[in-house]
């Protein structure tokens, strides 16, 4: 289910400095949405035409609502942060493939989120909360943490902060080794250096690992070839060593992509 439409803002609040949480009324997209998928949000200002891709943080299928949590990174997200209840947001979705959930049942899951890569982990952790022993490792810059309460409902949460103000001082890998965390499968989203470290760790320990990647996007639907990542093998669609993050991802098996 893909469409572009005007969605009504149900609510918006600042959950940490410059981090906003917005609920959108979007029944059709909510019905189809899977954890790890994303939306393209568009600006009202005609100077800014390209989409702002933002991951789904929560999906309320019953209410027909979608939650996104994002950092104000520039003019586009600043504009979005100024929307109020009842305003309309221009949204395309739902986009991307999402995290693979088949066969995860019963496995020990490591859910790793760094900074603004944490939001997609909320819906993922909830989806896996039933049958799995979720360990959720979250990396923040400092004590301004967000979404930890939501995530605590779906597993055991371990926090790392760069300045050491909460939890382990350092990054998510430091928290993993400090707490001797083990798992059969890893899901991770966060800055590229973090994803590289996670990938290396997974390879070293032969753990199945899925990463959610980011790249600049123009179309969001696989048509423009802006958002590619390098792949180990020739991709069947592109016929070269490239996959499209927006359509073939944003979630990839760590072993198939080169980051």
């Amino acid at each position: 289910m893909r469409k572009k439409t005007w969605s009504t803002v149900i609510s918006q609040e600042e959950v940490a400095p410059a981090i906003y949480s917005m609920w959108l009324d979007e029944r059709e997209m909510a019905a189809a949405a899977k954890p790890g998928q994303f939306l393209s949000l568009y600006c009202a200002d005609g100077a800014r035409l390209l989409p702002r891709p933002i991951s789904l943080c929560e999906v309320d299928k019953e209410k027909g609502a979608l939650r996104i949590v994002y950092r104000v990174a520039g003019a586009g997200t600043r504009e979005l942060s100024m929307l109020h209840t009842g305003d309309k947001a221009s949204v395309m979705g739902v986009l991307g493939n999402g995290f693979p959930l088949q066969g995860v049942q019963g496995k020990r899951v490591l859910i790793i989120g760094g900074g603004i890569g944490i939001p997609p982990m909320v819906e993922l952790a909830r989806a896996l909360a039933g049958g799995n022993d979720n360990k959720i490792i979250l990396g923040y810059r400092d004590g301004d943490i967000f979404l930890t309460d939501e995530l605590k409902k779906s597993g055991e949460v371990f926090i790392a902060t760069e300045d050491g103000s909460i939890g382990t001082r350092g990054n998510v890998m430091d928290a993993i080794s400090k707490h001797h965390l083990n798992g059969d499968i890893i899901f991770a989203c966060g800055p590229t250096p973090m994803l590289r470290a996670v990938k290396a760790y997974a390879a070293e320990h032969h753990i199945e690992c899925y990463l959610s990647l980011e790249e600049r996007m123009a179309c969001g639907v696989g048509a423009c070839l802006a958002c590619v990542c390098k792949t180990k093998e020739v991709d069947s669609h592109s016929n070269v060593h490239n996959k499209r993050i927006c359509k073939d991802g944003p979630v990839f098996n760590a072993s198939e992509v080169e980051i």
Partner: protein
Amino acid sequence: MNMKVDIAGVTWNNPVTTASGTFASGEEYSEFVDLNILGALTTKGVSNIPWPGNPTPRIAEVYGGMLNAIGLQNPGVEVFCDRDLPFLRKYDTKIIVNVCGKTVADYCEVVERLSDEDVDMLEINISCPNVKEGGIAFGQDPRAVEAITREVKKYAGQPVIMKLSPNVTDISGMAKAAEYGGADALSLINTITGMKIDIYKRTFALANKTGGLSGPAVKPVAVRMVYQAAHAVDIPVIGMGGIADAEDALEFLLAGASAISVGTANFYHPYAAQEVVKGIKDYMITNKINDINELIGAVDR
């Protein structure tokens, strides 16, 4: 009311097509747009062998538009013929295959390979600013334009549209050169070479340093060049550059374009191409225009 236009002997149901590289081979946008509604569908550039394209970041947003340096990534003509062409042929629309290459021989190879395929027209991209060899180098010198046109025409089984670069002093001269070389039609504009610098990282926003500017920002330049080209030659001109709605499209038709392409607008408004067709029709009704051909070049009349 007639919306049909004749482009070099090929009759389109209406004057609207998609700009190469902004609509892939149609599949991705078929979820948003009924492809049957398009006068023609122009594909992403196709080369003789698969091309991997440029490193990322490949795009950057700029005021009222975007820069791209995709670098003509494509799966190659064989995969195109085996997979994309059968998909496209399911629809009642003309198929224009955009062709790219590094050398004249490359272009000719693709053109020859397509000559027996069920393709309606060929568009030869001699104006891509984002690849080191080929592309724009052919499109900035009138003698080179004429020569490559003449060569490609030898192998072509379909009418040939030469796609011109706006990065030139004299667009009329380029248009005439393509016409002398035997082009059946022209299309313009391709993207205008631009650059964006990230002042915080103090580096180029694109891995390729420069990229092609497209979107609404380029429209006035595109309308001017289409006007000049259409007045310089007797072959049809397909106009593009920043067309996002029917009003934009009508500007190009009035300037002298016989057809128009919707490009970057597809990205931020996936229904754009379809709405342009509808909007032109509405304008014709409101203004009591019985034949779309009455509008073509009408700014001068």
